[in-house]
């Protein structure tokens, strides 16, 4: 099967999981959620931009936006959530110009975050005074929400904001000594922690337009994991980051296709299927790319 046919077949299979309102859940049978629906929009834009599912998914996402600009995480949980930049980025990429995207940007730039000063170095060995973005409002900054916020704000041309620069500083500060990122604690009690795929991929995407030694070490680590990543979610994120940040010609399509075929449907979440499709999208025009 050629790549185009395979992609179309995979898209059709994924679209079979859509709720009647055009949204997606994390797993079949669950309530619709913002993260998989936002990533669905981006996957469709990468492969089949004219599909009417883009507009229905965007409408569902837009309905998740709160008056304060933040987006809720799901159809059943209305609090301000870390999914805001993903939803807003999807709407932005889909051409939904207007107040919703800008309102989300202002909300993210003003999002409360907690910082610590004078942390004993042996405890975390990181600069806990750098804000970044938290998972939950007014908590401390973590790698993934910081990276998601940066990707969105850079994508809409707000990469020069001081909050984004602080986010970049947080990511560099939280990088693991051997390359890559985890959830956000590089060293605990004097011991280095382990990198993991998803935070590493997201941080690479957030810093894609400002590469340095930290990003190169992370990319090297990520590429060293090729062939070892097992789940479609991690594999999808790894493929996205490798495609966008890796050397020209980096292509994990065969890995993604093999995983799609090998992992039974019940062990592959809807989110995993979406990420696989994002993982095989070309670098040029990739919705998650902040440069180029």
């Amino acid at each position, binding site marked *: 099967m050629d790549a185009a046919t395979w992609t179309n077949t995979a898209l059709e299979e994924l679209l079979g999981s859509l709720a009647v309102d055009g949204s997606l859940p*994390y*797993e079949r049978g*669950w*309530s619709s*959620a913002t993260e998989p629906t936002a990533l669905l929009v981006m996957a469709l834009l990468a492969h089949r931009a004219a599909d009417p599912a883009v507009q229905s998914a965007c409408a569902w996402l837009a309905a998740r936006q709160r008056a304060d600009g933040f987006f809720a*995480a*799901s159809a*059943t*949980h209305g*609090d301000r*959530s*870390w999914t805001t930049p993903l939803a807003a980025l999807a709407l932005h990429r889909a051409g939904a110009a207007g107040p919703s995207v800008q309102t989300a940007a202002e909300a993210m730039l003003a999002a409360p975050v*907690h910082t610590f000063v004078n942390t004993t170095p042996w405890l975390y060995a990181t600069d806990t005074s750098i804000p970044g973005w*938290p*998972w*939950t409002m007014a*908590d*401390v900054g*973590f790698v*993934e*929400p910081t990276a998601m916020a940066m990707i969105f704000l850079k994508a809409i041309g707000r990469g020069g904001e001081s909050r984004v620069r602080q986010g970049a500083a947080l990511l560099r500060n939280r990088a693991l000594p051997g390359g890559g990122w*985890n*959830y956000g604690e590089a060293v*605990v*009690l004097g*011991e280095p*922690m*382990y990198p*993991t*795929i*998803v*935070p590493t991929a997201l941080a690479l995407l957030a810093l894609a337009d400002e590469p340095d030694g930290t990003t190169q070490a992370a990319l090297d680590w990520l590429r060293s994991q090729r062939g070892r*990543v*097992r*789940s*479609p*979610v*991690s594999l999808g994120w790894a493929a996205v980051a490798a495609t966008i940040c890796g050397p020209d010609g980096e292509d994990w399509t065969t890995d993604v296709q093999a995983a799609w075929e090998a*992992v*039974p449907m*019940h*062990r*592959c*979440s809807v*989110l*995993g299927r979406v990420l696989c499709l994002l993982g095989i999208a070309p670098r040029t025009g990739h919705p998650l790319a902040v440069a180029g």
Partner: protein
Amino acid sequence: MNRTFMDRTHGHRDALIRRRDFLKAAAGTAAAAAMPGCAGVLYSDGGWRSEAAILRASYDESSLLGAIEAGLDLIEPPDVSGKRVLLKVNLVDLPRDNRPIVTDPAAILAAAEAFRRRGAAEVIVADGPALQRDAWEIVEAVGLARMLDEQNLTFVDLSTADLAAVPNAGGLMGDLRTLYYARPVLEADVVVSMPKMKTHHWAGVSLAMKNHFGMLSGLAHGWPRNQFHVRNLHHAVVDFMHTLQADYAIIDGVVGLEGDGPVRGTGIEAGVLVMGSNLPAVDATAARIMGVRPEAVDYLRMAAGVFGPIGEANITQLGEPIAAVRKPFRLMPHQWSLAG
């Protein structure tokens, strides 16, 4: 019939509410009482008596199943006949360097089989890993995915599952008045806490009560559910006990984790399962096996007399005696005062 968080307080809810004011007051003095150098640590079991079962086991399939069935015979779990059982396992992070940081898949399968033999209509294996969002990467990496398939069992990622707001019935975490639980936990008839027997560099020990963290939604509380850590990890454990506690515990101590737990540290063969329906009694017993004084662990001391006993004299030990299986776990240097 599905149970609610109210049901899971085991009929002691009135007592819990009456004791909550005491707990709030006690929390302020707990740290001082547990400081290194204190001659003793004050706590009261409040008249509670309970029991805990210790079973010798290896990861051999028949050994595990036999041990778990023996434990269930010694301390009966709730009736599971025709019901949905949720095994809340501990898949905290992807294991690296052969560190035994997750509930062993063999123990999970044996427990599932034991509950099926008791008539459970459905057994679900579930967790919301603390340190990484992609639960399936862990499930696949430790070989659990294939093993679950072979036994026709399903895994549920509690971090991204549908969620429900539940009032925080404890109140120790101040402004955090609403907790968001994964709905599969609320919809299960019987919840079994199946942690790894581990030391924990902040909590002291990570056992059945601490394992409740993974029942809460990552969508709402993030990873690694930092809201609870910064407010006070021990208070969080007690609040979770007030709000929704597991009905039974099976602690995988066949090979535990000592030192810098919950994800660094090294394996230690303890060769036991610790089981029972009273979580403080089970955790206190496991702590003693690990060479940790239960009353020196803040959350265990705070749970004493509210949810059950932690005093050795108030816990009937079934199966093996503690002395026969005691295997002191190495603690972090800053936790030397926990040893005993």
